[in-house]
């Protein structure tokens, strides 16, 4: 089927709407999961089992006063959260989300339009996603620098250090699978692993998988690497002065990034989707959900690390391992 601009537009709208909703719903899931792991009930009062908590939160965030601190650089302060959310969604444009489908022909105007699984099927999709996630660091960074708050500055500094460092690990860790597949396109990754569970890259590249996961946690600012806004140390880091929907945008971005990382991990290492049928899509949904859940699970179970430990881990453990992994992979391919 031919990809038309209207299909891409529909896809983009779907991604924006659905992922935003899922990101919001993710907060509910997170609270619930954390609660259960601590034998609590979590949100219970808005809607059945607190299902409408997201609505309540949304109303609250939208109606809350938008405060810009007096000495802050207002312009930068205001656009910083937009950068986070925007880059997160731009990254999603190159990732296969939901199956492709054709709008049934009985629907007027749009009938017969093909909606692709990937909004923009770049042949260097993996790199693009990494690049956009790298650009996403400007959100926290500018936010922290613009708000005239010392906690914000510390948060911004940590953003720069942490994201830069772990970008290297992400790139290097995913390089080995790229070498094996010989392509940067997600479609090729999926095709490479199409042979069933035995073909999954995770078996061939377990080290890369683990490294990617660890780096993914750091890139998405999740426990145990949530140093940018760790309450016990820096109040709320780069988000200290934010409130209302601007604050909410940071978190939509964060949850979108979590989904992105989960998708990449699922597609690159866990076999991707079966392009042929709906079942494959359910399957990848399950995989993505598992990674998402893993992030919550880890948050409930593990303590966070110190900044120096974070750096130590990145530069002295993960990066050498990644390099070694690439060298070994190259050697094996050569032989």
């Amino acid at each position, binding site marked *: 089927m031919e990809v038309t601009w209207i299909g891409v537009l529909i896809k983009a709208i779907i991604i924006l709407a659905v992922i935003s909703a899922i990101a919001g719903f993710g907060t509910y899931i997170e609270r619930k999961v954390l609660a259960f792991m601590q034998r609590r009930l979590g949100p219970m009062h808005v809607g059945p089992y607190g299902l409408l908590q997201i609505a309540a939160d949304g109303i609250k965030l939208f109606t809350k006063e938008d405060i810009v601190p007096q*000495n*802050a*650089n207002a*312009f*930068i302060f205001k*656009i910083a959260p937009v950068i986070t959310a925007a880059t997160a969604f731009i990254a999603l444009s190159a990732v296969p989300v939901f199956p492709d489908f054709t709008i049934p022909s009985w629907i007027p105007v749009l009938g017969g339009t093909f909606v692709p699984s990937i909004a923009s099927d*770049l*042949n*260097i999709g993996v*790199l*693009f996603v*990494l*690049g*956009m996630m*790298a*650009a996403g*660091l*400007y959100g926290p*960074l*500018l936010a922290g*620098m*613009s708000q*005239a708050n010392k906690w914000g*500055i510390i948060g*911004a*500094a940590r953003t*720069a*250090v942490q*994201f*830069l460092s772990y*970008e290297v690990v992400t*790139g290097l860790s995913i390089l080995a699978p790229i070498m094996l597949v010989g*392509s*940067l396109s997600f479609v090729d990754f999926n095709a490479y692993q199409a042979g069933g569970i035995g073909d999954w890259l995770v078996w061939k590249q377990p080290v890369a998988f683990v490294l990617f996961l660890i780096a993914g946690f750091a890139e998405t600012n999740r426990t145990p690497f949530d140093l940018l806004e760790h309450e016990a140390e820096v109040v709320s880091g780069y988000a200290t002065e934010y409130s209302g929907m601007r604050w909410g945008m940071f978190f939509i971005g964060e949850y979108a990034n979590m989904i992105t990382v989960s998708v990449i991990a699922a597609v690159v290492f866990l076999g991707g989707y079966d392009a042929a049928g709906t079942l494959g899509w359910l399957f990848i949904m399950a995989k993505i959900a598992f990674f998402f859940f893993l992030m919550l699970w880890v948050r409930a179970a593990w303590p966070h690390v110190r900044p*120096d430990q974070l750096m*130590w881990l990145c*530069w*002295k453990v993960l990066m050498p391992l990644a390099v070694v992994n690439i060298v070994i992979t190259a050697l094996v391919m050569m032989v």
Partner: protein
Amino acid sequence: MYEMIAFYLFSALTIGLFMVTVMSKNVLYAMTSLASAMVLISGFFFILGADFLGVVQLIVYVGAIMALYSFAMMFFDATRDIKEKNTNNALVFLLGGLSALVLVLIFAAPIHSDAIHALYPIHEGAGNAQDVGIVLFTKYLVPFEVAAVMLLVAMIAGIILAGKKMDHSLTKDLDADDEILVVKDRK
């Protein structure tokens, strides 16, 4: 047609943003506009179909170099305007104008010669990344390897420099992990 629109839009924005970078007295504006301009430059690559280079532009300039700039800028008060100490405006204009002229001349010269053609034509069936690879590993093999070695050296040096005294506690001569302070049991 879309390429045209995109090109002119990106051009205008890029020039505008670089203007802001140069003209702004505020560090934050300068930095933000510079980063945005870099992103827009990657847009040119995408228009040209050089996706790989576009992404590399994103990762390297936006993700890495600019972040380092910004890290350095954190040592300044980002909320305050910077006062330039400009003693001789004429000189600045002269030098700026001359360098701009030189750049225009350099880039305009091939147009005049109307002899521009790709030295390495795009291979049919090969992706963008492959093309870059082919060029790098054929014509530019030696510079590429030299650059790679240089980068490796830089990286190792960096790790060694940074990690040299990482285990050394600045506050205590004892290792901080070794001890726990406990109240002496006073009887």
